[in-house]
Structures are given as C-alpha cells and as structure tokens.
C-alpha cells in the first residue's frame, strides 16, 4: 500500500514537472521563426475595447508576442487575478477596481521612465482619486454613462433616469447585469451617491429595482449592442462610446445624459503584482499611448481618449462632441465609482441576490 502511494506521488510529481516543462517550451517556441524572440506580453482587457490590428502592429514593431484575453466585468477580472488562475502582464480595470487592487497590494508600481508617452495624458486625468500619486495606472479610455433609446419606440424624449422605471416601456427596458452598475442607476435616480455606504439607501435602491424587475426585458452586459441595434429593446443604460457604435448600425438610436447626473468612468492600464514580463508590459502601455494607436482605438471603440494629441488628430465632429469631451459644467454633474468597504460589497451581493430571487 505504501509503495503504491509512493508511486502515485512520484507520478503526480513527474506529471507536474512535465506540465511545467511543457509550459516553458510553448512560450519559447511561440514566436515565429526568423524574428528574434523578445518574449511575450499577456494582456487582459474588456471585450470590444480595442482595434485588434494594433496588437499585430505592436508585435511587428517590437517582436513581442501579444496574448490577448478579454473580460466582461471588473469583478470577473478581479476574481480571475485573485484566483491566480492566469498570469497577466497588463490589465485594464476601471477606476474603483484599481483603487481596490491598490489597497489589496495587487498592483505593481509602474516605471514611468519606460512610458514616456504618459506626458501626452490630459493633466485633468493625472493623479486621479483612485490612484492619487499616479504610481500604478495609465488611463486608457474614459467616458460617460447615459440612457440609450430608440426614437421610434419611445413616446417622449427621456431626460431623467425615471425613464428606466417608466411602466409604459414594460418589456422594453434593458438593465445592467451587475450589481454595482444596476444599483448605481437606482441610487442616482433616488438622488443618492454612487458611493453611499448607507445600508438604508442601498436597500431602498434594491426595492426600486425589484419594482422595476417586471418591466425589464433582460439584464445584459455587452448583449445590449445586439438588442438595441436590432430594435428588440427600446431603452437601456450604457456608455456613450458604445452608443456611437450602436448608432452607426441603427440611426434611430439616441443618447440622453440624465439630469440627475451620471457616472464618469476611467479605465486605466495597470501591471498586476508578480507579472513576469514587466518591461514588455511597460512597452505595451507606452505603445497604447502613442498618437497613432490611440487614434485607431478611438475610431474603433468611440470612447473618449485621455491623450491630448489624439484629440487633435480626430475629426472636429468627434473631438468637439459635448458628450465625448464634456465641458466643466457637465463634468460637475458626474460622479465616479469609488471602492466600497468590504461590508458594503457583501451587502451589494446580498441585495443583488434578493433582486434576482424576487418573483413578480
């Protein structure tokens, strides 16, 4: 019996070793023959958030192979990193998630000497609340949340978050399928802060969402593109850049910035702690901040660029768009998500479960 066990353990060990060995060889032989191998960089970004041809461009310029993966929410990205399920060199989370990751010591300080293009970043976006000394992050894109609606399917022009709760649009409303964004819509409508930790306010917002549930067609994330473009839903809350992409397909769509105010988000490039290819990651971040690449990405995704030179490069129709590059007055109405304390996060999950389990 002991012998069998010993044999078992040895085999397991051998198998483990051979697996690691395999891992090593794959990365070694990954580069195309002929080009000198400069290693690789593992990038983890939001879905539909880049002009993918710039990745090949990066490899062509530097010889560094890009392994590109996507996620669909900050929370799922956090889960993957926390689980150590994969090792990434560059991740692009949003503001509040970056401050959470900084607090939990999950990010590597950047060497800005390797990222000279950082100087092109809009000074207004430097040293943000989520990274006050700007040690860990370089902004990638930013934008505003609003209501996207189909002009042929609504009877009056929406001006407020109230539209999302209007019974006459029953079965036509698309709502966020994640707790932070969905509760955010309700909190803003009720006149509360996105970052409230007041249990009563959060519960009130959930109660509102439970009342709204029968009106909701479905809870979506990126599925909203398909549903708004095809006209199968009339109203949904999503980002201005995405609205521009959707309106390209379906010209009946329009965008409303609710009068109660809205969410301003910044997604920024960071390097997770323990990244194996830190120098390559910094080269990649610098590359993403170059004018040509930044312009290509904006023209693909239509989000707002933090790069000053890109703004000059863009068509005035885009760069003077008041929703893409809002003025001070508009910005004053916007609020960003901040990281919430653990007990509030747990409350969010509990309230979200309560909403999803509510039957009506």
């Amino acid at each position, binding site marked *: 019996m002991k012998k069998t066990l010993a*044999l*078992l353990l040895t*085999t*397991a060990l051998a*198998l483990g070793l051979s697996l690691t060995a395999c891992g090593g060889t794959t990365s070694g032989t990954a580069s195309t023959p002929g080009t000198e191998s400069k290693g690789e960089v593992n990038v983890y970004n939001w879905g539909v958030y880049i002009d993918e041809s710039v990745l090949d461009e990066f490899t062509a310029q530097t010889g560094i192979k890009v392994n590109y993966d996507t996620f669909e*929410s900050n*929370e*799922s990205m*956090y*889960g993957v990193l*926390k*689980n150590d399920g994969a090792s990434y060199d560059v991740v692009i989370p949003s503001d509040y998630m970056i401050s959470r990751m900084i607090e939990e010591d999950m990010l590597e300080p950047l060497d800005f000497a390797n990222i000279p293009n950082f100087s092109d970043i809009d000074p207004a976006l430097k040293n943000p609340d989520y990274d006050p000394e700007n040690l860990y992050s370089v902004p990638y894109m930013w934008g505003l949340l609003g209501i996207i609606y189909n002009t042929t399917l609504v009877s009056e022009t929406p001006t407020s978050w109230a539209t999302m709760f209007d019974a006459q649009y029953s*079965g036509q409303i698309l709502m966020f*399928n*994640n*707790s*932070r964004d969905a509760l955010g819509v309700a909190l803003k409508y009720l006149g509360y802060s996105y970052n409230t930790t007041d249990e009563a306010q959060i519960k009130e917002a959930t109660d509102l969402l439970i009342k709204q*549930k029968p009106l*909701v*067609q*479905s*809870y*979506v994330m990126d*599925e909203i593109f398909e549903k708004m473009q*095809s*006209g*199968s839903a009339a109203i949904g809350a999503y980002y201005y850049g995405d609205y521009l992409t959707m309106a390209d397909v379906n010209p009946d769509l329009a965008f409303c910035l609710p009068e109660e105010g809205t969410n301003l988000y910044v997604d920024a490039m960071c390097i997770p702690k323990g990244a194996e290819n830190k120098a390559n990651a910094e080269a990649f971040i610098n590359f993403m901040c170059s004018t040509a690449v930044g312009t290509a990405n904006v023209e693909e995704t239509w989000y707002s660029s933090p790069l000053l030179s890109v703004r000059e490069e863009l068509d005035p129709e885009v760069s003077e768009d008041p929703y893409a590059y809002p003025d001070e007055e508009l910005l004053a109405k916007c609020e960003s998500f901040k990281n*919430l304390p*653990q007990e509030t*996060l*747990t409350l*969010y*999950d*509990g309230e*979200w*479960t309560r909403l*999803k*389990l509510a*039957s009506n």
Partner: protein
Amino acid sequence: MRNRALAIPYVVWMALFVIAPLILIVIYAFTAKDGGVTLSNFSNMGQYFPAFRHSFVLAVIATLICILIGYPLAYFLSKESVMVRKVAMMLIMLPMWMNFLLRTYAWMSLLDDNGLINQFLGSIGLFDLINGIFGTNLTCFHMINTQGAIILGMVYNFLPFMIMPIFSVIDKIDPKVIEAAQDLGANNTMVFRKVIFPLSLPGVLSGVTMVFIPSVSTFALSRLLGGGKTLLLGDLIEMQFLGNAYNPHLGSAIALVMMVIVLVCMAIMNRFGEGEEGVAVL
C-alpha cells in the same frame, strides 16, 4: 499486478483533477476568509432556498421532457436499418461539435421577438390570421427571456445525453427474449411493457443522470435565454467567484450542498432501478 500498473495513469488523473478539486471545495466550504474553520457558510444557506428550488424544478422538467422525446426516438431508431441509425446518430451528435455558447446564441436570435421564428410566422401571415379571428393585437410570440426558453435550452443541449444511453441499451436487448415473449402469446404492448421497458431502464437511469446533473448546475442559460431575471444555482455560485464580494468560501459551500442533494437524488433513483436489475449509475 499488470492490470494495476495500467490503471495508474487513470488513478493519477482522477487524483489530480477529480479528488483534489473536491477536497479543495470541502476545505473552502468549511473555512472563513481569515482561514479559521467555520460553519457560517452553511448557516446562511436558507436565504438561497428559492434558487435551489427553482434550479431543481427546471432541471426536473427538462429531464422529463428529454425522456418523453428521447425514449421513443431511441426505441424507434433501434428498429431501423444500420444505415438509418448511423445517419440519425450523426445528426444527433452533430450539434455537439459546436460550442455550447454558440448554440445558445443561435437560439437567442431564433427566439427573439424580432427573431427568425417570429419573422417567419409573421411573413406567412399567422399573426394577421390570429388577430383576425380573435381580434387581438399580436405582433410576435414572446419566447425569449422566459422560463420556457431556459428549459428549451436545457433540453436542446442535453437531449443527446438521454438518447445515447437509452439507444445503446435497447439496441443490445436480445431479440430472442422478445421472440420468446411473443411465442408465449404476448401482444406488442405487453412485450414492450413487460420485456423491453424493464430491460431498458438502466439506459433511462443513466440518461436521467446525464441530463439532470448538467441541467441543475447550468449557469449561462438563465442569463442568455432567461434574460438574467432568475437566479439559478450555477449563477449563484458564479456570483460568489465573479461578483462584488468575491467569496469563494460561500460559493464552495453552495456547490457542496448542491452536490450532496444531487447525490441523494441519484441514490434514491438507483434504489428504484435495483428492483429491475442491479444497476449502479453513479
């Protein structure tokens, strides 16, 4: 001894990828975030009862529908010529060569209010006909984002797992047994009821296992076909890992409770099967 040596790779595989994860789930389920041993992950389980109930109800319905469709199909197929059987099996297996998510996305665009099915029904004038007769104002059949759509997704995706085991069991029934029954004067109904059906039960039981377990733990279906309006167990567990609070301990505890319930269900079912023939499906 030689047989034992051959089993080693399999044992190692099982140890690494079945036993070890299972042990990890148990460890996670009984510990708290700070690492201490706790039962708190289980004591709050009551609030998730609706998710458990809902998942089991949908999975039972989907499994029953799979039996109703799968059994007759497997039965009649076993009577066909070899050629027909091969083609039919190919067609049953064919959708499984495609990714599960892709197939589900296809259903999304089929079932949509503006989807292919409704467009087709509209173009042949069905809605006008109904509206003409009943004076209604119907423009589409509302199919997507309903419980029915979730069940449809389960049936569509897991039906092959019902047909296959039933078919292979019926196919192996010795024709002499059936002839003997007929010689003894049994008519077709009696032959089926007294001979074929009891002999095919092991296939039904393994079919039920193979449909029920993935159905009860499925997670993408309720979001894609059900519009995310219901929370099934799979979604609840996923939320613990990919949600705000990131609580793998609670997620593991829910997964463990689900496993225990499924195990009990299967054990009870096997008890039923044992009367007929000593089958062990698990």
